[in-house]
């Protein structure tokens, strides 16, 4: 096929972080004037490839061709100069500045050394852009960005991309925070972009958008390119099976613990706009998986459960008795412990020692009313640290200097020492290497065998299927289903439920 038919091509792209391979031999071919959907599970490598195209990451191998010629993109401004722009999921306008100022930021003047900004000229050019995209009716060049809705802010980002004469615009889940009406408006603008021969890479999890909007669709899985199809030649079932595709990977330890009584029950958890009417139970010795796409509200539910976030509505029953939890201290007293997803943000005090981090949650055991029991602290922390096999010189090492896997083990150690009845693990193996993963799985099963009830949030399908006795699926803040049978159909079922029960 003639190369010139593509405006942007990525070929044979490899990328590893530390020793973890996140992209291997990935390709993508974008034609001018097409909307090219990019699909795949969380962690399939979509965003990483986009970041390589935008010059945010550097690929280990492979090449990127722009209009048929090899392009060297080392930083974002290189990509912009070529005519590649990206609309990120998290928009970052400067709220106090006007629409015109935001669009022309960094190029307010013709020459880099011209000292003064011609505001009138900027406003005039902005007005022309707004008119070209039929937005002049409700957005003015002089309006401060903070007055615009999320959807309008996104439109401005798109216009900004257009104003760079972009030939490729990448959109990362642009509709995730838009209403239906706003989505229609976005699609109209994408239609105008197509008419101008702009190629659009459209990352999405929403199946229906692919079929209404896209011309072609590429599917990634586990950092590999699976297939590129004409949308009219494919269907939902085929796309889902391409996204899931893999065999149930073995190598997960079997949880043979007998399932006991219900330890924890969550009833009708609601917080406006975040999650609604969420109810589930977990039994002693059971590992309950919470599945869903990023942003489905899973972390928010468990954070409310342990009293870190406010809960608007709902009840918690521990061993049949209702309890109130308004601060993590209450959860701790009731032996409900959470090992959070983000070690840096919520898990550890990185500038302090392993010992202090473990102790922080376990003062009841390791301190009297006022003072630390230093001897007991040293002994208990040493024991639990070697039990979870943290690789360290001493328990006085700074937690921030450990590897990700070892940090996660410190989080586990501090959670385990308090002897929880219910242990909540949010993405317990995110960003850690295979060896450490296996060790963490082993510990989880051991804990279940001691009669602990474990709730595991995971976005990795094999992990969910391999470790869970039962899976509850959430989508857009609601529970959309439950699976008790981890057979080969389970993956497709979970994905369907996570995508919103289509």
């Amino acid at each position, binding site marked *: 096929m003639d190369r010139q038919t593509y405006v942007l091509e990525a070929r044979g792209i490899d990328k590893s972080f530390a020793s973890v391979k996140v992209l291997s031999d990935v390709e993508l071919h974008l034609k001018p004037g097409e909307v090219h959907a990019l699909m795949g599970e969380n962690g399939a490598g979509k965003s990483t490839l986009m970041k390589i195209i935008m010059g945010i990451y550097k690929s280990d191998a492979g090449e990127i061709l722009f209009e048929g010629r090899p392009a060297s993109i080392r930083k974002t401004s290189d990509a912009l100069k070529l005519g590649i722009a990206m609309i990120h999921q998290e928009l970052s306008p400067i709220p106090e500045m006007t629409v015109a100022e935001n669009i022309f930021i960094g190029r307010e003047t013709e020459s880099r050394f011209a000292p003064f900004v011609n505001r009138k000229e900027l406003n005039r050019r902005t007005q022309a852009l707004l008119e070209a995209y039929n937005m002049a009716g409700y957005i003015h060049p002089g309006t401060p960005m903070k007055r615009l809705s999320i959807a309008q802010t996104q439109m401005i980002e798109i216009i900004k991309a257009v104003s760079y004469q972009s030939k490729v615009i990448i959109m990362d889940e642009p509709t995730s925070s838009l209403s239906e009406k706003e989505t229609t408006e976005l699609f109209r603008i994408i239609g105008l972009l197509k008419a101008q021969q702009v190629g659009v890479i459209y990352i999405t999890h929403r199946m229906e958008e692919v079929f209404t909007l896209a011309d072609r669709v590429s599917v990634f899985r586990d950092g590999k390119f699976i297939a590129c199809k004409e949308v009219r030649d494919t269907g939902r079932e085929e796309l889902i099976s391409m996204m899931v595709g893999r065999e149930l990977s073995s190598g997960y330890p079997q949880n043979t613990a007998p399932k006991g009584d219900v330890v924890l029950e969550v009833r009708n958890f609601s917080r406006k706009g975040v999650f609604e009417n969420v109810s589930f139970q977990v039994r002693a010795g059971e590992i309950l998986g919470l599945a869903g796409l990023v942003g489905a509200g899973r972390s928010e539910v468990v954070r409310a459960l342990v009293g870190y976030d406010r809960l608007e509505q709902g009840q918690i029953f521990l061993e049949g008795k209702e309890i109130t939890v308004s*601060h993590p*201290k209450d959860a*701790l007293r009731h032996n409900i412990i959470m090992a959070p997803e983000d070690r840096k943000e919520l898990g550890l*005090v*990185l500038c*302090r020692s392993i010992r*202090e981090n473990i102790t922080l949650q376990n003062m009841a055991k390791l301190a009297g009313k006022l003072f630390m029991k230093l001897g007991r602290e040293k002994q208990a922390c040493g024991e639990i640290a070697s039990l979870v096999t943290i690789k360290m010189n001493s328990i006085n090492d700074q937690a921030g200097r450990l590897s990700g896997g070892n940090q996660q083990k410190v989080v586990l150690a501090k959670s385990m020492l308090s002897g929880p009845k219910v242990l909540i693990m949010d993405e317990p193996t995110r960003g850690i290497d295979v060896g450490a993963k296996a060790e963490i799985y082993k510990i989880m099963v051991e804990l279940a065998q001691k009669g602990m009830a474990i709730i595991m949030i995971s976005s990795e399908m094999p992990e969910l299927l391999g470790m869970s006795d039962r899976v509850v699926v959430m989508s857009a803040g609601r529970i959309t289903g439950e699976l008790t049978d981890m057979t080969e159909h389970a993956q497709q079922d979970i994905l369907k439920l996570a995508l919103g029960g289509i």
Partner: protein
Amino acid sequence: MERVKVVNLVQRFGLLMIIVIMVAGMSIVSPVFFTAGNIVNVIRQISINGILATGMTFVILTGGIDLSIGSLMAVTGVITGSLLVDGYPTFVAILAGVAASVAFGFFNGVLIAYCNLPPFIATLASTTIGRGFALVYSDGKPYTLTTPEFLAIGKGTSLGVPNPIWLLLVVVILASIILNISKFGRYVYAVGGNENATKLSGVKTRMVKMFAYVITGLLAGVAAVVLAARISSGQPTAGDGYELDAIAAVAIGGTSMSGGIGRLSGTVMGFVIIGLLSNSLTLLNVSSFYQQIVKGFIIIIAVLIDQRTKGKSN
């Protein structure tokens, strides 16, 4: 391993070395410096800033700052002063004065921990409120103090050692116990290091932050009593700018301004260095105007050295 140990040594004893060099240098240059009289004088001068800096260490470790301690000293000074002038027992006068600055510390703590005001803003506001309160209360005039047992706190000696030095010792030892082996001390470090993670670990982080400001307020009150007793006067203008020396001592001592990292022993060396510096410059007949300039540069140099040594170990 070996290199790590050496760096640790430099890190831990770098400040001590600065002190040793200063003392050695001054002993050679000035005949007066290394006399018992001058040494006692230095420590006596250090005591007030030492007590303040010890309090400041707590709030800075939580990631905050307290600009109001100078004003709080004035509040304590005028209340204690007026009660003494009115003939109340020394004990009652001191208690009431210190209680007032503790109350201000509590006020700061509530604003910062529960109303989420930035510490800089909250304590800046308290600075002018406190100063204004002291001026209104005293009608702008100082209270001249004559009660002998009160003045003894600042001027007297016990077992041959000046009383302010005893007080400083007690304050530093108590603070060291709290920071190193109490639960609260652990919480102070943890909150400064990562407030969110600390909360998730079941710690009432707001309470911890609030108490840090109460401690700073308390120690501002104690320092105010020492000052009033030394100058025989409870003044509404007392303590102006004292917070700066206290913050400087903590900074020189290597405590991270964003919280979580630091030791009281560092602060102690910090205020000793500042005290030695003032004394040395005075002995060398440097005008007090120039002293301020020199002090500023010494702070920059000390903190730069400290950052470098820490940078290497990372």
